[in-house]
């Protein structure tokens, strides 16, 4: 479901264009480089995915659109909400989920349990919609109906079992008050030769 049209937003908080988004990257990079990961947790943004690699993570954010996805207060535990990112074109189908207090790499929110991923299996393009599983401390998507890959949503979408050649692309999130924005992407979406087709 697309949230942008159904949610009237304050002028100041509307999605920014890629260019506008890039302008604020300097402060974000500094934040990434110098802030401890725990300090980030309940703060406004949290895109420090890999300790020691902030610069690389930052590179994945530049030029991506900043897009409003959902309100934190409206996410229900373990109920994925669908959206499209970084555009509305082929294979952009994605989901955001609040994983019931289970912390995850790249997670935002007070419990760092809110993550978002592309829905297309990176193995051969199978649809992962409807395959979210929450069991004990584990949170996965899969098995993919085509060749049965499963992905660990707590660990940046790494393949648990299966055939994918890369992790499920993770949508980088930013929390601004109660509003969650998609701001970038880690990994190439299946079927694309670059994530940003319009650039």
């Amino acid at each position: 479901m697309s949230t942008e049209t159904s949610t009237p937003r304050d002028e100041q908080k509307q999605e920014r264009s890629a260019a506008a988004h890039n302008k604020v990257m300097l402060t974000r990079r500094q934040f990434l480089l110098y802030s401890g990961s725990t300090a980030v947790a309940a703060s406004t943004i949290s895109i420090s995915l890999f300790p020691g690699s902030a610069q690389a993570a930052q590179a994945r954010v530049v030029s991506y659109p900043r897009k409003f996805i959902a309100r934190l207060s409206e996410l229900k535990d373990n109920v994925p909400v669908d959206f499209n990112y970084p555009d509305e074109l082929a294979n952009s189908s994605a989901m955001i989920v609040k994983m019931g207090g289970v912390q995850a790499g790249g997670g935002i929110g007070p419990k760092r349990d809110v993550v978002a991923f592309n829905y297309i299996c990176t193995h051969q393009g199978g649809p992962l919609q409807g395959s979210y599983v929450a069991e004990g401390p584990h949170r996965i998507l899969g098995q993919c109906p085509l060749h049965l890959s499963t992905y660990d949503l707590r660990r940046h979408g790494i393949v648990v079992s299966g055939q994918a050649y890369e992790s499920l692309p993770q949508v980088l999130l930013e929390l601004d008050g109660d509003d969650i924005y998609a701001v970038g992407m880690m990994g190439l979406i299946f079927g694309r030769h670059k994530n940003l087709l319009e650039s």
Partner: protein
Amino acid sequence: MTTEYYIPEDNAPLPPKNCDVLTTACDYCIVACAYKVYRWPVGTPSGGPKASENAFGIDFPSAALEDWVAPTQHNVVMHKGRPHNVVITPDKQTQYVNLHGDASIRGGCIAQKVYNPDKPTRDRLKHPMVRINGILQPVTWDFALDIAAEVGKHVIKKHGANAYSVKTFSYQFLENMYAITRFSFRDVNTAAWTWHDTPSKATSTPGYRDAGFDNFAPSYEDWGAADTLLISGTDPYETKTIIFTQWIKPAIERGMKVIFINPRETGGTTFAKKMGMGLHLDLYPGTDTPLLGAIARIIIENGWQDDDWIKNWVNNKWETDSGFGQGTRNTPWQWRTTWGKFQTGGFEGYKKWLLAQNEYQLENAARITGVDAAKIRQAAEWLAKPKADGTRVKASFGIEKGAYWSAGTPNTNAVASLATLCGAGGRPGQVVGRFGGHQRGGQNGGSYPRNKSPEKVPGRRRRPLDTDRWLKSGHTRLAHVIGTTWMQAMAGTVGLQQAFEQMVTNNPHQVRSHDKQEIIDTLKKRTDSGGMVVWDHDIYLRDPIGSRFADIVFPAATWGEEDFIRANGERRLRLYSKFYDAPGDAKPDWWIIAQMARRMGYDGYDWKSSSDVAEEMSRFSRKSRKAYHMIKVAAHREGTTLHEKLRSLGSDGIQGPTFYNYETGELHGTKRLHDTTLTKADMDKKWGTDGPQGANFHSKKYTHFNSQTGKVNLQKHPWSLISDYWYWLQPRDGELWHTNGRINEIWQSGFDDTERRAYIAQRWPADTQFMEIHPDDAAARGIESGDLVMMYNERVPTFKDTILGVYKNHLQFDTLMKEGHIELGKGAVTAVAIVTPAIKKGVLFTNFLNMWQPTNSLQGAVVDIITGNYNYKLGIAKVRKLGESKYKSTFNSLSFVPRNLSA
């Protein structure tokens, strides 16, 4: 090295329309999927997203199942001295194996295996090296080869050929294997020779061989053609991926039932169960024989056996004995029957024997195996209970290492006999085989000199020499190691490593000179003083064989760096194309061997290319399951070479054995061996009218079984062959069963992807062994996922002596123990715990070949009496928590999710 801080790319280049396109097959697992290599010079434009702009001829973004380039499928290589882009993706046009261009995670990332100094493959071996003053130093080929040849000649002359021990991969391409075996057998003539995965030149599946089943008789399509498929000792989804996803999975969706025999549940089992088509018999390691015996017993008690098949295709008493006691007695089947342990005298004899064995009564088998009796009964029903309309269930049987490396002989005998009762073997939908491990690259260039082996088992024949025990006893003076770690791959790793240290590192004769002759003299002195010298061919420097022990290291050129031929698990032969320059001075193993052999004075070896080797070796393939000689015959009639003819067959290749019809000029392959449905007309079409014409070769196995009569030998499968060892091992005082095995992400690819592919290293950090443990066992020990644990075994048994077996039970474990031939040692490895219900309670599971924490050091070095191979999958360990690993509190790499978790 690769770290777990891997940041995936978000773009990948598309190959341009006019790029070079070469065919190959994946280098890794037995399945050998078809791949294409797209190559174009760096600096020239990549392809565009429109169909008219790229080599795939499709529009991007592509749809599911269409071509796509993942960032891990692109690399940069040198081709003819200039940098080129390569994209290596599964062949979407292939008609066989990986239909629709399916790929596993291993093959899918194969572009990352090629040498690129900007990537983690930068430490490929590039120059020959000689250890001088303790340091491996680059030298010229001549310098290294002269030393190797001189010392080699000396060892053979002074200490005998058996002092020259060769430990080699068995699979890394036909041309190399031909050169290695020609050198080892025909010329050096050593009995101290074996493959990477056995201590002696052992047969892993004696039960199949003696029944008459070729391990690789079926085609992949056969695995999806049964009503019920029994899979033992593997989950083909994890290992043999594409056989599962392209052949077994669709069959399950159509209603094929699958019985999995395995202490562990993984993705394929999960899927089959989810579809209501799976039955998981979660046994304790090593107990297949009672399990299968119980199933056989239920079938016979209910009269569900295939009487017609047994009448027509199973040897009766006379046929079983035919040829026995007269004429050529020296066949494996015949000498084994002298024990009286396996021979049955046909179905009635088997039935009488089976019903007399207490361990095959359902309740006893359930107790030994730990499998619910109701599930064992259900398995028997799935396999053999007639359908409602009275017709037979079509059953097929496939096994892999969990079965034949946990109790080799009894387990393979039991599967063969159960399959035969069910009418399997030799008919579409009713086949018997192995799923397979590595690809099939064996090609004999000589005969193994069995009579030079000092080992003998009760009966008549000698058993191939156990190279581990031979070395530990101090008889090996030159260890020539080709593409294997040796120590970590063998059970009882620790003792072997200590022997290397003692004979190599601790020997006073160490090279301290720049002078070639002085180096030669020093190494000779080492061999004369009870020490050992080590030559090592490899693509990376391995620890400890290369980094600590090798006196000479030879850098090998491999996949993609030379044209090579190999076959897969359905005998499909392909040319693996060279598509880039080997790093540095690296040379293919056939070249290294040839250079050494010529210097040692052996004749021949004047090959200029791998094509020359192929031309010479093909005639020696004619009896083999992958007989490819007729491809050369066809090639020569068409004015080309074996390599070029095979290249023209592309990634589809052809299934051996091959035939050439001189009348029609057609080349024919073989879908399955032992195909009892083939008619004379079918064969006439292949090899010409009225029998094999010209160079075509006749073999019984095309239409019959590999036995003395062409019918199947129905064999006993005595539990007593292994039960003394099994009961001795049975966990006590806090021990648990420990078995190890393959994991999908690293399978037949560990030789270059464990540390060197960023994504794989993120999934499984290379220096981190893992240990799966059941939640109940974990709770009892206070262990949680992510904890660092110590696994240890305080009673690792090692069979230490080379003794002659004369009487019936001479080599039984109990006898060896009583007579003092078993030594108890200790083994220890650390690992990160993964608490998961996917492993049976009471059993631990680890990755079988993590070089840094080799869990074979926990497994007993006690060989199967018949095969001479270790039962690697059968072991015990204690485990305790050391502390927490960083993976417990970070999210970058590893995953603690059970492999069987699914929506």
